[in-house]
């Protein structure tokens, strides 16, 4: 893995960002990051205490109820703390952690998406042969999770960040490192696809 690839996974591409961009941070947060970079374990604990809720809730919304979430929270913070010395404050800590979360879950979501598609195809085939057999009725929340799983990971990230995390298109563009127009387009496609999925249920 090259340094560039590592930086991409960790979302630390802002290591080359100019110092002026550090204005994204409040002074308290700057101080906290400086202490963490100096190796103060208390600062790492403060970061964990302050942001574990955000990371956990985001994972919950992306993946649904999942036994792997606790493990993923640890992975994300290990990655963040390992890379914190390279964090130059080009974004807020919250944005940076969203970015690490997005990068960490990206492969997992793709794997699951492919698996879901395959499963859906098999189910469709079986249903065609046994049309009289009805599947179990899910409650709305579980059905919503199930529908989200049918959404392509790129679209799901944008939908969850916008509608569940309440971020702006600009912030999502920063997290996913894509042009804002792409984010807007993905959001529209996500909504349209979900509407279609709901109607076809």
């Amino acid at each position, binding site marked *: 893995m090259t340094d560039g690839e590592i930086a991409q996974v960790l979302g630390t591409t802002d290591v080359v960002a100019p110092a002026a961009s550090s204005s994204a941070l409040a002074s308290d947060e700057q101080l906290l990051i400086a202490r963490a970079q100096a190796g103060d374990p208390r600062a790492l604990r403060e970061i964990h205490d302050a942001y574990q809720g955000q990371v956990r809730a985001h994972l919950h919304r992306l993946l649904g109820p999942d036994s792997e979430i*606790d493990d993923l929270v640890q992975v994300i913070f290990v990655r963040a703390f390992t890379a914190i010395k390279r964090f130059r404050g080009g974004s807020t800590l919250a944005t940076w952690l969203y970015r690490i979360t997005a990068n960490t879950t990206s492969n997992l979501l793709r794997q699951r998406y492919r698996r879901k598609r395959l499963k859906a195809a098999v189910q469709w085939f079986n249903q065609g042969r046994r049309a009289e057999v009805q599947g179990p009725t899910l409650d709305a929340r579980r059905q*919503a999770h199930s529908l989200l799983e049918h959404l392509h990971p790129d679209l799901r990230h944008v939908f969850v960040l916008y509608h569940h995390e309440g971020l702006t298109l600009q912030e999502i563009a920063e997290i996913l490192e894509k042009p804002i127009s792409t984010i807007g387009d993905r959001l529209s496609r996500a909504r349209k696809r*979900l509407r279609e999925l709901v109607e076809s249920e």
Partner: protein
Amino acid sequence: MNAPLHSRYGCLEAQEDAEAALADRLPEAAQQRYQEHLRECPRCRRAHRVLDALYRPVAPAERSSAALEREFSGILRRMAATEGEGSWASRAASSLAIVALAATAMLLTLMLIPGQRSNLYALAPSWIEIDTPDTIYGGIDHPAQVYGRIISGQGEVVATDGEPLGHHVFPTETRLRTAADESMQLQLVGKILSNIGPGTDVAWTGASPHAVSLDLDRGLVAFRYDRLPADPLLNIQTPDARVRIRGTVFTVEVDDAGHTTVAVLRGRVDVLDAAGKRVIADVRAGYRFEVASQSYSDVGRREVQLALPLSQESSGHGDELADGRIPSSWVVSGLPSDPTQRTLDNLIEINYVPHPRARVAQARRPTGALGPDDDGQELLEMLIRDAESTRAEAIADSLARCKELHASPETRYRAALCLSNFIRKHGDNRLAAEGLLLLGIHRMDYAGDHQAAIDDFRRFLELAPDHPEAELASYRLWLAATEQGNIQEAKRLGRDYLRAYYPRGRYVYQIDQRFPELLADRGGR
């Protein structure tokens, strides 16, 4: 005008309006039409519910402070493991080799094993942390849980009206005092482990499902509270502050001038003014906060030393027993992360300059000192003495090593680990059964692990039902169930005990104290 429009409002229009309706962006009239359509159309109603669930996020259940502590410890361990893996280059080389091997193995497997190819898309099973304590929701549900117990040490125990108490179990409204050369370890409501330092005067003033309250008038007390979501808060009132705890390891000290100092080793603590109305400090792990001067400093050796008997370590795979090292989850400045180096010897003594108004603490020797009088000290020692004469030599030798640890109040908390190793080695031997009883008592008293203690007591009774200390095991079994909050089971076990030992049993009083109805059932009153 509205009527024709209304009549044209169908499923297509409802679908178009659904997102705006969910976001409350529809004009009132349109919202009304949308709602009317939902009332008439079950299909759109179902779609609305699903869309509502899609657009309204749910938050995951709140994690207990103990679970968060475990998580943070896990992060530190993983970081240490990552750092120990060597350079990026060697890691990359190892990764490539592993990937190549894995790919070959997978290919071979696919060639050899016929069957569903959909398994190709299945995720590899991942490591799943079993988070047992979060599945138990804690709380105080029954008056039988509202008691404290002295685990070891010496001190004076009196009711707040001055009446001396003659038992190691005490209710609320109890005052505990230690002289300058005494200390005392106790458990409150089966959840809060506390070590009372020399020259301390503290009163347990109340316990409810919402809060456990103590008044600390003088001295130094360490607490460990692995609070579960439904457990009460812990409030400590001092002359000039109120300390509010959600779950953590910390110490509170009040000097003779009534000035308070709070040191936090794990978690965080709110310090409020004496009236409990205004938060004056949010003290985080690794810091020591002095209320009078409103100043922070690093946690010192004294506080760590006092809290060390409460030092059960939480690993990612469950709780581990104390071994005398300072847990990695405690934040102590100046200590290395290498677990073998995290000892008191490597911790520099910090000499704090006392606040000008503070006087040097003069510990009073209280009168009428009382030690734990039931099963605790005396019976354990008797057990150990008895064990030496009855066991095979090898087992007796092993147990004797644990006994050495148990003999000293400073190292007693480490006997649990010693006993655990002893049982691992000799657990199937009937002669080692007493070790199980001792281990259960230590697990219950120092680790607060009631379920593990219950298992130990049950195994002891299975292995040695006629043992002279079977009565103690039956009593401890009942006590563990009571303190765990498993009231139905506690009542059943209490009845079993009374059936076997009433009226001459050594612990009839203790059972009657918490479940008077059981004795009444037997016509004992």
